[in-house]
């Protein structure tokens, strides 16, 4: 009987030993964490709500800069359309020319309008003006995706402009602009200095990063969206 109890005691001790050693190790590690002085900068706690709050602020800022139609487009479709501004004249008029505020820059090779230069005269779009069939090209601006140039008249995709707005002062963290800030930066740069933005971007043929099928679907969604808006605007009130 005594022998049996002794054997059981030894078995229980053997089973409990690893668990007891783990508990002791954990306690020692815990005391080291609480006792050590960790530099303050390493104590940064990730705030999960920070990005959400940043995006909310960015949306308000974007809303305050766009016109009502552009904002509704972004809110409901997730992208905005910006009319291209470079004028391309027919070959008979001596090639292409940029619009007034950048005619003297001597640039324009990056412009999507070049793709349609042989097609005849094109009219430049005003910022915030919906492109018509007369406009040679327009852009779709997505958050954190390439800018897509296309022909509104034919829905032909012209090129992708891969561009980002990196924080050079804090490259370690790799933080990026909130989605709506990225759209706003592209909108301001496109409407303010289109040629400069295109020069800084990497230009690729359509399909490099964005699925052309998806972009065409977005163009179709945009047309449907505009048709609905027109219809509701024309519908009699009351």
């Amino acid at each position: 009987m005594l022998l049996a109890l002794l054997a059981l005691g030894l078995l229980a001790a053997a089973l409990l030993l690893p668990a007891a050693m783990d508990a002791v190790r954990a306690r020692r590690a815990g005391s080291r964490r609480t006792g050590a002085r960790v530099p303050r900068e390493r104590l940064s706690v990730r705030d999960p709500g920070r990005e959400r709050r940043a995006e909310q602020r960015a949306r308000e800022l974007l809303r305050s800069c766009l016109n009502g139609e552009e904002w509704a487009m972004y809110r409901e479709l997730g992208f905005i359309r910006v009319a291209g501004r470079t004028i391309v004249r027919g070959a008979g008029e001596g090639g292409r020319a940029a619009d007034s505020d950048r005619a003297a820059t001597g640039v324009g090779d990056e412009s999507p309008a070049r793709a349609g230069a042989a097609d005849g005269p094109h009219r430049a779009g005003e910022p915030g003006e919906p492109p018509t069939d007369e406009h040679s090209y327009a852009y779709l601006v997505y958050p954190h995706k390439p800018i897509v140039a296309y022909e509104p008249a034919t829905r032909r995709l012209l090129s992708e402009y891969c561009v980002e707005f990196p924080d050079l002062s804090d490259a370690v963290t790799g933080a990026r602009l909130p989605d709506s800030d990225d759209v706003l930066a592209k909108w301001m740069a496109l409407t303010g200095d289109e040629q400069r933005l295109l020069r800084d971007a990497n230009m690729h043929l359509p399909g490099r990063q964005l699925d052309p099928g998806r972009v065409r679907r977005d163009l179709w969604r945009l047309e449907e969206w505009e048709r609905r808006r027109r219809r509701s605007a024309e519908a009699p009130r009351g």
Partner: protein
Amino acid sequence: MKPGYGEVLLTEGDPRLAEDEERLVAAFRRELDAGMWAAVPTKDAASGRRQGLMVHDYSEIPPEAERVIFFPRAAGG
């Protein structure tokens, strides 16, 4: 616009007051020296069209501008 944070107010003031303007000019230069781009969102009073106006110097800021937005300069992605 600051990556990871969104909109951050750098400084504000009335440019008609000399002391405020000095501070605004200093903030403007500091941001451009740090490699940021500056733009003023504008609205055409007649047509209602909106667009960005890129400014490279404090003197280029339209007098009626209410704010200047700084954002990191573009780079090929």
